[in-house]
C-alpha cells in the first residue's frame, strides 16, 4: 500500500510542472483550396492532440477557442483534400490563421488514408462530452477497429484489443463466439465484470443478476470499441470493470448502397463469410450485416457453426431529431471438448475426454433510440431495448456415482455394447428482459464559466429462468430434459429470476478555471433480486422450495477532476463507488447443506484512477495512470460448526492496484519524414498490477494475492505500411497468475484439481493486408512462436479444467467492396 501512495506522489510531481501556458482569445481559422483559392466548407480543424476545434462554414471559416499560446500543431481534414498537418506559432496578437489544402490528384493508398485517420485520432479518447454522456475526468480508451491489421474474422480479442491497457483475455480458440476479457484482477469469464453494451444498450443476459455476455458482435462490423474504467459506474453499469461499448459501423453517407463482402479461411477449419450493406438515401440510412462462421477447433471433439445478423435503420427527421431501430440475431451451436488437468495438458494439449458436450446460444436484441436536440445547448436521448435469448448446455461433466465426482478422473463410461452409461447434465437458461434509458444533457453557464449537466434514468426489468436436470444418454445435441426417465438424477433444479431495477443518475462538469474542471456524480439505485424455485434433494428424494428476495437501495457517489493546462497534456483523476450486485447463483442454493446468510449483500468497493495523457511533441502519444480498486465483501461459502453446514456470505476484502500505461510512437516522422507512402508506429502497452486479500473468512487466504492478476501484462507492437501494403507485428506477454484464493502454484503433477497458477505465456502475431482497387486481402500468422499455452482454467463450461489455446495458425481474408 505504501508503494501505491508514494507512486502516486511521484507521478503527480513529475507530471504537473511546466505546463503554464494561457489559452488565448478566439482565433479565426480560414481554410482555402490551394489551387483555386476557393473556400473549403466542412473542413475539420483539429489540434494534433486529437481535440476538435471546429468545422468550417460556407466561407471556409471557423472561430476556434481554447488554443494556447506558443507552438501548436494543427490538423486540417476534409474529404477530397490531402490532410494538412502544420505547426503554427500563436501569439497574443494572432487573430487569424489561414490554411491551404491540396486537392487529391489521385486515389489515395491505404497508407495515406490510414495516415490521415492516424494523424487525427492517434490514441483516440472519448471527449469530455459526447452526445448525452460525460467522460470528463474518467479513464477512457477507444479502439479504432478499422485500423487494426489482424484476424478480425476470428474476433481475435488479443489483436483487436491489443491497445487496451491491462486486459486479461481468454484465448479460447472458439472463433471469438464468446468474448472473455477482464482486467485489474476481475474474472474475465464471459466479460461479466464489465457492463457490456452495443451502441449504448445492454447485451448481457441480465445486467445485475447474471451479467454474462454470451453474444459478441462481429469485429468486422465494428467501428470502435469504447472502454471506460471503473468510474463508468455512475452513468452505466455499476460493475468494477467499467463499461465496454461496441460501436457498430455507421451507415455510409455518400452512397445509397455499399456492399462489403469478406470471406475468410483459416487454420483449424475456420471459414467465415461477412457481408454488409450500408447506405443513405435522403433522411433514411441503414447498415446491416450477416456473418456465418464455422470452425473445427484445434482440439478433438470441437466444432462450431454460428449465424449472426444485425440491422440498423435510422431516420433523420430534421437537424434536431433522429430515430433509429436496431435488431440483432445470433445463434450458434458448439461442440465442446471439455477441460484438461495439468497432467493431461502436458501429455497432449490436443486431447479431449468429452465426446458429447454441446453448447447452444440464441440471442435476439432490439433497440429503439430517439435522439433530440431541444436546443443548441440541450440534448436528449431515449433508448428502449429488449433481449430475448437462451443458452443451453448439455454434456457429461462428472460421474455422480462416485462419492467425490471429479471431471478429470471421471471417464465418460460406455457399457460392453458401446452405449453411454450416464445421462448427461442439461442446463437451460432463458433470458427475457427489457429496459429503457433516458438522458438529458445541457450546457449552461455558472457566471462566466461553461458547465455541463447530465441527468438520466434507467428502468430494467428481467424475467429469467434456469433449469438443470438430466439430459439424454445419447451423443447428439439434444437439449430435451428426460426427468421422467431419470427421476433420481441428483442435479435437478428449476428457478425463476424476476429482477427489477431502476436508477437515477446525474453528473455535472464544473469548470473551476479554464484549465481545471471537477465532475461530481451520483447514482441512486433500487434493486429487487428474486430467486423463486426448487432444487432436488437427492438423499431424501424430494424437491425443496427455495425462494428468496433481496430488495435494496444503493447510493453511489463519485468525483472526477481534470487539469488541462494545454491541448497536449491532461492530468486526470477520479474516484467512484462500485458494486457487483448479488447474482442469482449467490442467493439460491442447490444442496441441503448450504444456507445463504440473511445478511448477504452486494459486493461493494471503490475504483480510482490518477493519470496523465497527451502528446509529447509530434510523435509520442501517451496515457499513463495508476489505479486502485478496493473490493469489499466478496461472496463465498464457508463451514459453520454450529449448524454443521455451509454458509454463503460476504467473506473477504481485497485491494488491487497498479500502473497502466500506453505509449504510441510515430516512427514515420523519425525515419520517413514527409514520405506520404509510409506509415509506421510502435506501441507499448503495459500494466503492472499487484493485489492482496486484506481479510477473509477462509483459512489461508488473508495476505494472498487476488486471482487473475498477472504482475506484468505487456502488449507491444510495430505497425508498418507502404502504399497499399500494411503489416503489423504484435507481441503479448503475461506473467504468471493465480486462479484461486489460496494461490495454488502451478503443479505439473496435478491430475485432480482445477486449481493452479496459469504459467506466464508470450505470443507473437504477424498480420498483413493489401488493397488493390475494390479488393482487399488480409493474411497473417497467429502465435508465430507456436507456443503451447493456456489462459484459462474453467470452473464450469466449457471445461471444467484447462482450456488449451491455439498453436500457430494462419488465416486469409478476401474482401471486395461495391
Amino acid at each position, binding site marked *: 500500500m505504501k508503494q501505491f501512495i508514494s507512486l502516486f506522489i511521484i507521478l503527480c510531481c513529475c507530471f504537473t510542472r511546466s505546463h503554464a501556458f494561457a489559452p488565448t482569445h478566439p482565433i479565426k481559422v480560414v481554410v482555402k483550396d490551394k489551387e483555386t483559392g476557393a473556400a473549403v466548407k466542412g473542413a475539420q480543424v483539429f489540434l494534433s492532440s486529437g481535440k476538435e476545434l471546429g468545422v468550417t462554414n460556407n466561407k471556409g471559416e471557423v472561430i476556434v477557442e481554447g488554443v494556447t499560446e506558443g507552438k501548436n500543431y494543427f490538423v486540417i481534414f476534409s474529404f477530397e483534400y490531402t490532410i494538412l498537418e502544420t505547426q503554427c506559432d500563436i501569439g497574443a496578437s494572432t487573430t487569424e490563421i489561414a490554411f491551404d489544402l491540396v486537392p487529391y490528384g489521385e486515389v489515395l493508398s491505404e497508407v495515406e488514408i490510414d495516415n490521415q485517420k492516424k494523424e487525427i485520432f492517434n490514441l483516440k479518447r472519448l471527449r469530455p462530452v459526447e452526445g448525452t454522456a460525460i467522460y470528463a475526468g474518467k479513464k477512457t480508451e477507444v479502439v479504432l477497429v478499422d485500423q487494426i491489421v489482424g484476424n478480425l474474422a476470428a474476433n481475435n480479442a488479443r489483436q483487436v484489443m491489443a491497445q487496451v491497457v491491462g486486459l486479461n483475455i481468454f484465448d479460447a480458440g472458439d472463433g471469438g463466439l464468446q468474448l472473455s476479457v477482464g482486467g485489474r484482477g476481475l474474472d474475465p469469464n464471459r466479460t461479466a465484470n464489465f457492463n457490456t453494451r452495443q451502441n449504448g444498450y445492454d447485451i448481457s443476459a441480465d445486467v445485475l443478476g447474471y451479467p454474462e455476455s454470451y453474444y459478441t458482435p462481429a469485429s468486422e462490423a465494428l467501428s470502435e470499441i469504447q472502454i471506460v474504467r471503473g468510474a463508468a459506474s455512475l452513468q452505466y453499469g455499476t460493475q468494477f470493470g467499467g463499461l465496454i461499448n461496441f460501436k457498430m459501423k455507421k451507415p455510409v453517407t455518400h452512397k445509397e448502397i455499399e456492399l462489403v463482402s469478406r470471406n475468410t479461411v483459416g487454420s483449424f477449419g475456420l471459414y467465415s463469410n461477412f457481408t454488409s450493406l450500408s447506405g443513405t438515401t435522403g433522411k433514411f440510412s441503414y447498415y446491416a450485416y450477416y456473418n456465418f462462421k464455422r470452425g473445427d477447433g484445434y482440439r478433438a471433439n470441437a466444432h462450431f457453426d454460428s449465424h449472426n445478423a444485425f440491422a440498423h435503420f435510422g431516420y433523420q427527421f430534421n437537424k434536431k431529431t433522429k430515430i433509429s431501430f436496431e435488431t440483432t440475431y445470433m445463434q450458434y451451436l458448439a461442440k465442446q471438448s471439455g477441460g484438461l488437468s495439468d497432467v493431461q495438458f502436458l501429455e497432449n494439449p490436443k486431447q479431449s475426454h468429452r465426446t458429447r458436450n454441446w453448447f447452444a446460444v440464441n440471442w435476439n436484441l432490439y433497440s429503439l433510440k430517439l435522439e433530440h436536440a431541444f436546443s443548441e445547448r440541450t440534448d436528449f436521448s431515449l433508448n428502449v431495448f429488449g433481449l430475448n435469448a437462451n443458452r443451453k448446455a448439455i454434456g457429461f461433466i462428472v460421474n455422480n456415482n462416485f462419492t467425490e465426482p471429479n471431471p478429470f478422473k471421471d471417464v465418460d463410461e460406455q457399457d460392453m455394447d458401446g452405449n453411454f452409461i450416464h445421462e448427461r447434465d442439461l442446463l437451460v437458461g432463458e433470458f427475457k428482459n427489457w429496459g429503457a434509458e433516458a438522458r438529458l444533457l445541457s450546457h449552461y453557464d455558472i457566471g462566466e464559466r461553461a458547465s455541463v449537466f447530465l441527468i438520466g434514468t434507467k428502468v430494467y426489468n428481467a424475467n429469467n429462468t434456469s433449469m438443470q436436470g438430466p439430459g439424454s444418454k445419447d451423443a447428439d445435441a439434444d437439449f430435451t430434459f428426460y426427468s421422467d426417465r431419470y427421476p433420481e438424477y441428483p442435479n435437478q433444479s428449476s428457478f425463476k429470476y424476476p429482477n427489477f431495477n431502476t436508477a437515477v443518475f446525474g453528473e455535472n462538469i464544473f469548470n473551476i478555471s479554464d484549465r481545471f474542471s471537477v465532475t461530481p456524480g451520483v447514482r441512486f439505485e433500487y434493486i429487487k433480486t428474486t430467486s423463486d424455485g426448487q432444487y432436488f434433494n437427492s438423499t431424501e428424494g424430494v424437491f425443496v422450495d427455495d425462494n428468496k428476495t433481496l430488495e435494496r437501495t444503493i447510493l453511489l457517489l463519485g468525483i472526477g477532476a481534470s487539469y488541462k493546462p494545454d491541448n497536449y497534456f491532461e492530468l486526470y483523476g477520479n474516484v467512484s463507488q462500485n458494486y457487483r450486485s448479488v447474482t442469482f*447463483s449467490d442467493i439460491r442454493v442447490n444442496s441441503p447443506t448450504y444456507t445463504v446468510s440473511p445478511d448477504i449483500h452486494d459486493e461493494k468497493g471503490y475504483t480510482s484512477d490518477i493519470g496523465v495523457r497527451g502528446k509529447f511533441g509530434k510523435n509520442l502519444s501517451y496515457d*499513463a495512470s495508476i489505479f486502485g480498486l478496493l473490493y469489499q465483501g466478496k461472496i463465498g461459502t464457508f463451514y459453520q460448526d454450529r449448524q454443521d453446514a*455451509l454458509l454463503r456470505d460476504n467473506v473477504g476484502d481485497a485491494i488491487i492496484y497498479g500502473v497502466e500505461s500506453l505509449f504510441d510512437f510515430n516512427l514515420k516522422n523519425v525515419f520517413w519524414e514527409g514520405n506520404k507512402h509510409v506509415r509506421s508506429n510502435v506501441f507499448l502497452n503495459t500494466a503492472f498490477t*499487484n493485489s492482496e486479500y486484506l481479510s477473509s473468512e477462509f483459512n489461508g487466504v488473508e495476505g494472498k494475492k487476488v486471482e487473475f492478476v498477472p504482475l506484468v501484462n505487456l502488449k507491444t507492437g510495430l505497425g508498418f505500411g507502404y502504399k497499399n501494403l500494411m503489416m503489423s507485428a504484435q507481441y503479448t506477454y503475461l506473467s504468471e497468475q493465480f486462479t484461486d484464493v489460496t494461490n495454488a502454484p502451478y503443479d505439473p503433477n496435478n491430475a485432480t484439481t482445477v486449481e493452479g497458477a496459469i504459467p506466464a505465456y508470450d505470443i507473437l502475431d504477424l498480420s498483413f493486408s493489401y488493397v488493390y482497387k475494390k479488393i482487399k486481402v488480409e493474411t497473417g500468422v497467429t502465435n508465430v512462436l507456436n507456443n503451447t499455452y493456456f489462459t484459462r482454467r474453467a470452473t464450469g463450461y466449457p471445461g471444467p479444467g484447462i482450456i488449451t489455446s491455439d498453436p500457430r495458425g494462419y488465416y486469409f481474408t478476401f474482401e471486395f467492396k461495391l
Partner: protein
Amino acid sequence: MRYSIYLFVLTCFFASCKSDSAVEDCTNDAFDRGALLTNWADNIIIPSYELYVDELSSYKTAVATFVATPDIQNLEVVRTAWITAYTVWQNVSIYEIGQAELKNMRDYTNTFPVNTVLVESNISTGNYDLSLSTNLDAQGFPAVDYLLNGVGTTDAEIIAVYATNGNAANYKTYLSDVSERLLSMGNEILSDWKGSYRDIFISNDCASSTASLDKLTNDMIFNIEKVTRVAKIGIPIDFFGQPPVIAPEKVEAVYKQDISKTLLIASIQASQDLFNGKHVNSDTEGESLKSYLDELQIEAGGKLLSAVINERYDAAMTQAETLDANFYLGMQNDREKYKVTRDKIHKIIEVLKTNMISALGIKADYNDSDGD
C-alpha cells in the same frame, strides 16, 4: 526527461513487487511441511499400503484355496484373512490422494451396502465389467462380505453355493475376480507410491488448496466425517430422520455382522494415528499435524489444541468401545448409544474443521460450485 522518470517509477514498482512474489514464500509459517510429509509418506502411508497389500495377498491365496476346495475349514481361513485385510483397509481408506484418488479406490473398495441384486445378476450372466462405476456397489469388501457370509443362511448352505450349486463356477469366478481386483488396485497404488509419487507428494510442500498437506488433511477430515461418522453410524441409525427410520441393513459388514465395531474402531484409530504422526509399525511419533500445532503453540480453552483434539479422539474411542460388536442387532436395541458415539465423533470433526485448519491456514475443500 519525463520518460526516464516514468521508467524509473515503473522499475521501482516492478522491483518492489518482485520481492513478495508467491513462489518463494509459499507457506504461512516457519514449520517444515516437508518433514511432516516425509513422516506421513515413509512411516505411515507407504507402510500401511505394504501391510494392506500383504494382507490382501494372503487373503487372495486363501480365496484360491477355498475356490479349489470349498469346505468349512477353507471358508473360515478365507473369512479370517478377509477380516484382517478389511481392518487394515480402514487405514488406507484415508489416503485418497494420487493414484488412489484418480482410480476412486475408496469407492471401488468399500461402497456399502452391497447391491446383492446386481451381484447375483453379474454372477448369473457372467457378463460384467468391474471397472465401471455402475458396479461400484457390487464389488470390494462389502461384496466379499456377501459372498462369504450372505449367500446362504448357514455355513453349509454357503459352501454348497460354491460346491454343488448349478452356478457354482460363476460364483467362484466372481469371488476370484472381486478379490483379484482388490489386490490389483492395492498393488497399483503401492507401486505408484514406491515409484515416483512419494517424491511428488513430499515436494509439494507449499500451503495452498493443491498442496499435499492441505489435500491430505482435507482427506483425513473427509474420511472421519463421511466414511466414519456418516456411513458407519449416521446413515444406519438415520441420524437426521424426523422421526428416525432405522436402517440396520446399511451397517458395514452387514452379513458378517460381528465385526462392525472392530472396523469402526480401526477407522477412528487410523485417523488419530495420522493426526499424531504415529508410525504404523511402532509407537514412535514423528512430525505430524499435532507437532505442527504444537510448534505454532496453538491453544484452545487454556490447553494445547492438539491435547484437546486427542481428548476428543479418546472420548469417541471410549464411547465406541461400549457399543455392541454387532451393530446390526445393537442399534436396533439401543439406538441412543450409537447416536452418542456419532456425536462424539462429530466433536472431533468440529475442532479439526474449525480450530485446526484455521490455525494451519488450510482452506476446507468442499465443493462450492453450482455446475456452471
